[in-house]
């Protein structure tokens, strides 16, 4: 799939940026915001005459081979961005998993992964939790009565400033002969996915270790039963590891910088 980015920067400023960031895909120069206006995404809250007049509302379009919009991703707050790795994962189904961790209990195995290995301020990414239950085991789905359902929590006050709403997958109804009840359960493999938005630089940077390592912590709670007995509920500690990357504050040389009209 082709990739390109468009901004109102001059060719010179884009070349400077591309060289510095080692970007090989095309960066298109739209200094009069003609393309931005044609797409009707000009940010009209910016005053004409200021240097930022002409910027778009930032976002991403996924187009099919005919140029038709298949999906688009725009955030209300320009400081939040959806990770392109996650967009690709959503579009094509194959998760681009950059980070993996595994934890094992007597009843199941839990694998943590994330769509990105870099934590950037304001970046929205996906966290995944894959649960592989041991043969014969089942766990309970949210909404069950009388048993502890699975519960995926993320810590407060960590790198994840926004924890977006997510839903648990569909469960199956299982009839338990021993008690004569039918209950909503999961068996075999459970795939959980949720999104977080990293905090802005001021809050995120202090959380990084000197080597740049950042961790998002959480827990996975469950109660496992087999066809004969139920086991004590467990709470598995979870970790997702990232490398902090700050905002690129470097400017183009003065002669390439945009001046207001």
């Amino acid at each position, binding site marked *: 799939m082709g990739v390109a980015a468009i901004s109102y920067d001059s060719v010179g400023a884009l070349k400077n940026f591309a060289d510095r960031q080692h970007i090989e895909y095309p960066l298109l120069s739209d200094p009069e915001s003609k393309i931005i206006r044609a797409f009707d995404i000009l940010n009209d809250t910016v005053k004409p005459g200021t240097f930022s007049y002409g910027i778009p509302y930032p976002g991403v379009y996924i187009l099919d081979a005919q140029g038709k919009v298949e999906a688009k991703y*725009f955030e209300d707050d320009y400081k939040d961005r959806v990770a392109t790795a996650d967009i690709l994962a959503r579009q094509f189904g194959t998760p681009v998993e950059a980070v993996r961790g595994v934890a094992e209990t007597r009843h199941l195995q839990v694998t943590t992964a994330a769509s990105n290995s870099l934590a950037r301020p304001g970046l929205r990414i996906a966290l995944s939790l894959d649960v592989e239950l041991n043969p014969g085991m089942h766990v309970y789905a949210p909404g069950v009565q009388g048993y502890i359902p699975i519960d995926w929590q993320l810590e407060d006050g960590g790198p994840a400033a926004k924890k977006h709403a997510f839903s648990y997958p569909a469960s199956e109804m299982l009839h338990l002969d021993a008690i004569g009840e039918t209950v909503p359960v999961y068996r075999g493999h459970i795939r959980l996915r949720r999104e977080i938005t990293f905090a802005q630089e001021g809050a995120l940077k202090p959380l990084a270790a000197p080597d740049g390592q950042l961790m998002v912590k959480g827990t996975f709670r469950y109660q496992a039963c087999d066809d004969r007995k139920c086991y004590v509920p467990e709470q598995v500690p979870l970790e997702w590891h990232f490398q902090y990357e700050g905002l690129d504050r470097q400017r*183009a040389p003065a002669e390439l910088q945009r001046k207001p009209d």
Partner: protein
Amino acid sequence: MTKSKRLLLGALFLAFLYGQRIKTGPEVGRQVPDFSAKDQEGREQNLSSLMGPKGAMLVFFRSADW
């Protein structure tokens, strides 16, 4: 009324008050306008030149400089 209904009405009221919404351009299912522009190497690019066999990802961003 339930708490969630109250919150929803409150949010809708605030959205009405503040009015200002971001613009997101062509709707899903619509054709994007064709365009032509120079890239960082001075090459002329348009929708067809950027297309891959599976389509394209087009990113609009504010600035590469600030």
